[in-house]
């Protein structure tokens, strides 16, 4: 018996209209995640109640932590007459009831279809005194019918640059780090690495300490974490910006150059040895530091692990789905491990990504703008030894009896992602450990009893 029993093996029917089991979701949730990476920020969803409710629920299930955001609660009338009234009331209510430092508004398919002019409404709110002194309201356009959740993240980060960064005349040495959509643990690790490199920096967004808040007996409405407004502002004075992940951060990086002449380097997400090397090289090209011994040691430990474990990884087939920036770095790293990535699917369409993936894995079946139904068909036609993707992959993994590494967004049925990074060299060690464990567990489960091994 299988769970996804209607997914056929054999020839794959092209589909032009119907998406089945999406490998993506819509922009606003990405905007909400990014906005929560600002300290004291309340994300606001300009649309129907359901959007906000769905985004909060999904983020909550992923993090098992509170996720606070408000909505314009559109009704039939709003859909006809537009959302201005609702947004004005909302802003007034928000500041009086939840007292945020910042409100980060993102739009929805509804408000975009209606055509609400959010900046104009925000302006009006200020004029009508609905926005208290010193409070900040800004917005990003995140129409659900273009791009994906990653685009929403990218747009919100670009808006942070646009509305929240400033440049003074004083030139400054610090770097601006613009992380792609990664976990709080990854944000923390990126900061640790940059600190080890001895480079002063500002980083935004920063969800470290936001979605992994301690249990204290109190609900801290605005968690300790998040990039401070004043730090974001300093992004405009940065000597150079380093954007991690092309799809999620290029727009912000270019915005920073455009607005404040801050030169920027966009690198892949620092997942795996090569990508982390490139990130550090990119910073070294600007700051010319000596890479500290401690970091070389972390790298050396990862290389050591790989060289010692190479025989267990070599030649094993992998299917992977997820978001483009992760896919590029991960498939490259899997190659470094000697694994063979056979099927790659991302829901986000992007010529650039398609080209990069082909470059990293010329042999693989690559579907950019595809869905999990398609991936499952590929897996049925050519089975793999490991599946990597978000929690929705578990049904395929069980049907095909394939070891399954949870990676990406959302992870609804396991814990750890918010606490342990997968970026950087130490993150690489964690990834290799996880993959090795999956592979060895499967061997220990399936191997004939007289072949059960004591040692690796």
């Amino acid at each position, binding site marked *: 018996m299988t769970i996804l029993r209607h997914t056929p093996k054999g020839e794959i029917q092209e589909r032009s209209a119907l998406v089945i089991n999406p490998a993506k979701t819509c922009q606003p949730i990405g905007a909400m995640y990014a906005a929560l990476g600002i300290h004291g920020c309340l994300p606001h969803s300009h649309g129907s*109640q359901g959007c906000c409710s769905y985004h909060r629920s999904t983020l909550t299930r992923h993090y098992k932590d509170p996720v606070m955001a408000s*909505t314009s609660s559109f009704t039939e009338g709003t859909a006809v007459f537009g959302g201005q009234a609702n947004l004005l009331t909302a802003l007034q*209510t928000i500041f009086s009831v939840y007292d945020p430092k910042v409100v980060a508004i993102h739009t929805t*398919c509804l408000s975009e279809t209606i055509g609400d002019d959010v900046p104009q409404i925000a302006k009006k709110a200020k004029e009508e005194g609905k926005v208290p002194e010193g409070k900040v309201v800004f917005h990003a356009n995140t129409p659900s019918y273009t791009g994906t959740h990653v685009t929403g993240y990218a747009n919100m980060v670009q808006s942070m640059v646009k509305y929240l960064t400033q440049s003074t005349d004083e030139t400054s040495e610090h770097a601006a780090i613009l992380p792609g959509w990664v976990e709080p643990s990854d944000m923390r690790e990126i900061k640790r690495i940059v600190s080890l490199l001895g480079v002063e920096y500002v980083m935004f967004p920063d969800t470290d300490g936001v979605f992994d808040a301690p249990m204290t007996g109190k609900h801290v409405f605005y968690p300790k974490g998040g990039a401070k407004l004043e730090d974001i502002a300093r992004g405009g004075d940065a000597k150079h910006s380093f954007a991690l992940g092309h799809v999620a951060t290029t727009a912000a990086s270019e915005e920073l150059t455009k607005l404040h002449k801050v030169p920027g380097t966009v690198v892949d997400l620092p997942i795996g040895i090569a990508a982390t090397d490139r990130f550090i090289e990119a910073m070294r090209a600007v700051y010319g530091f000596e890479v500290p011994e401690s970091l070389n040691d972390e790298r050396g430990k990862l290389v050591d692990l790989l060289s010692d474990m190479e025989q267990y990884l070599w030649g094993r087939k992998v299917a992977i789905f997820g978001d483009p920036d992760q896919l590029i770095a991960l498939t490259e790293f899997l190659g470094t491990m000697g694994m063979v990535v056979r099927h790659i699917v991302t829901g986000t369409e992007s010529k650039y990504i398609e080209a990069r993936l082909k470059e990293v894995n010329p042999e693989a079946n690559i579907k950019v703008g595809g869905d999990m139904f398609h991936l499952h068909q590929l897996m049925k036609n050519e089975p793999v030894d490991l599946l990597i993707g978000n929690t929705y992959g578990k049904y395929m993994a069980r049907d095909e009896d394939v070891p399954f590494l949870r990676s990406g967004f959302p992870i609804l049925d396991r814990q750890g992602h918010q606490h342990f990074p997968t970026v950087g060299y130490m993150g690489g060690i964690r990834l290799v450990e996880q993959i090795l464990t999956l592979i060895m567990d499967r061997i220990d489960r399936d191997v004939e009893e007289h072949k059960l091994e004591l040692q690796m």
Partner: protein
Amino acid sequence: MIEQRPDAQTAKQELVSMYPAKLAKKRATQVVVNDVPESGIVPEILVNSRTAPGIISQRGCTYAGCKGVIMGPTRDIVNIVHGPIGCSFYAWLTRRNMTLPPTPQSENFMMYAFSTDLKEENIVFGGEKKLDAAIQEAYDLFHPKAISVFSTCPVGLIGDDIHASAKRMKEKLGINVFAFSCEGYKGVSQSAGHHIANNQLFKHVVGLDDEIRGSRKFRVNLLGEYNIGGDAFEIDEIFKRCGFELVATFSGNSTYGSFANSHTADLNMVMCHRSINYVAEMMEKKYGIPWIKVNFVSASGTAKSLRKMAAYFEDQDLMDRVEAVIEEEMAKVEVQRRKYAARTRGKTAMLFVGGSRAHHYQELFKELEMKVLAAGYEFAHRDDYEGRRVLGTIKIDADSRNIEELHVEADPEKFRARVDSEAEARLAARGFKFKDYNGMMPEMDPNTLIIDDISARDTEKLIEMWKPDVFCAGIKEKFVVQKMGVPCKQLHNYDVGGPYNAFRGAVNFYRDIDRMVNSPVWKLTLAPWQESAEPALEASVA
């Protein structure tokens, strides 16, 4: 702590006064200190009213109520969401409505998410053609019995006629295709979605199949049961043992065919009054099937409901079987109840969820001998709070008026009055009541707080003031509550728990609540150095 709690009036003031004047004024009518006079006429409460923009509410949208709640649990209909990708993704397997196909080959599309994934060009030039194509592609891949379409927010504005598309494809493919105009902005909560789902289900499916299958006696439908965590499996098992023939459940573990055949039942039992009473009403008008309110949450509620069902059929054997089952099960339950109540007695609970569970689950807390301090619904109407007696007096506001009211008449061929006037008299004489629901408030203690559409701010404040031992709500509230050191039981999806219905389900609930309110983990919140400036002596011993 309990003695330090501010009284209900003060608490209400505290809650209301957190809001700006205008809003506070409104909240004052949505937050009520309960009072249950002899008359049974409880205070009036303002409900089913728009959530103020900016307020962080529990509520979802019409689409969620229609696709997620009502239509989600049916396994053999291909449900295509017409809109941008998000809405389909978020409603994908996120409720725990289980389904158990009879064979490994049986159709089951529940684990699949289908969407037309509308893009900018579709928003600009219209998405109807894409919808037609999507239906065709679904048909070519799966050849299902039926396909249904759900429109999301923008569809309402770009002028796609999903019903026309459904009609076209129905004719073309020769299978049932029907659509729901459940745009998220309609109504004030999921509630509007329930109503829309009820209407279309009734219009397009109910009554299509007249064949009588299974026993001709004691044929019933169960309305408003969604098989979360396997609840329906428990109820089915009990029905079988009692001898009831369950024709259709709306919509836990359901199939397209069971809906089509549901008008062949002789009694409708409404469990979640809020989400489904529309169907019950319409089926009575069109087919002559009377309905009664039941509740299979809690052992006592289950026993009461079974007796009422048996009483309706006026069959001695049936009544005897029902009594035998109740006796056997209650004996087992009571042993467990005593064991757990000894550990939960006197502890306190709050319930803020849905349209019926905030009421029904109070029964289980009573059985655990716990005290309910406050409760409220997320998307209910006045009758769910105050009882159906107020139905006449509810004024229809704009938002409700926007939801289509089907005009239903008795079906010339298929109408059959199930209860003649004598029978009705006999039953009445025995105190048997049809379509009788008193609502939540009359069954709660005086000076408890009733709060409609509770907000995140209310939740925090309420817990600070009244420190309950357990708080029942949904996923968005769960970790807020637990950060405050109070365990939160999700009553939408049961936290991977359940079944909680019927007799064995009740015991499952006892066990889970005992675990939660007595878990040592809540005592770990403070480190020793946060509890006392003086280091523990033990530690310094060499």
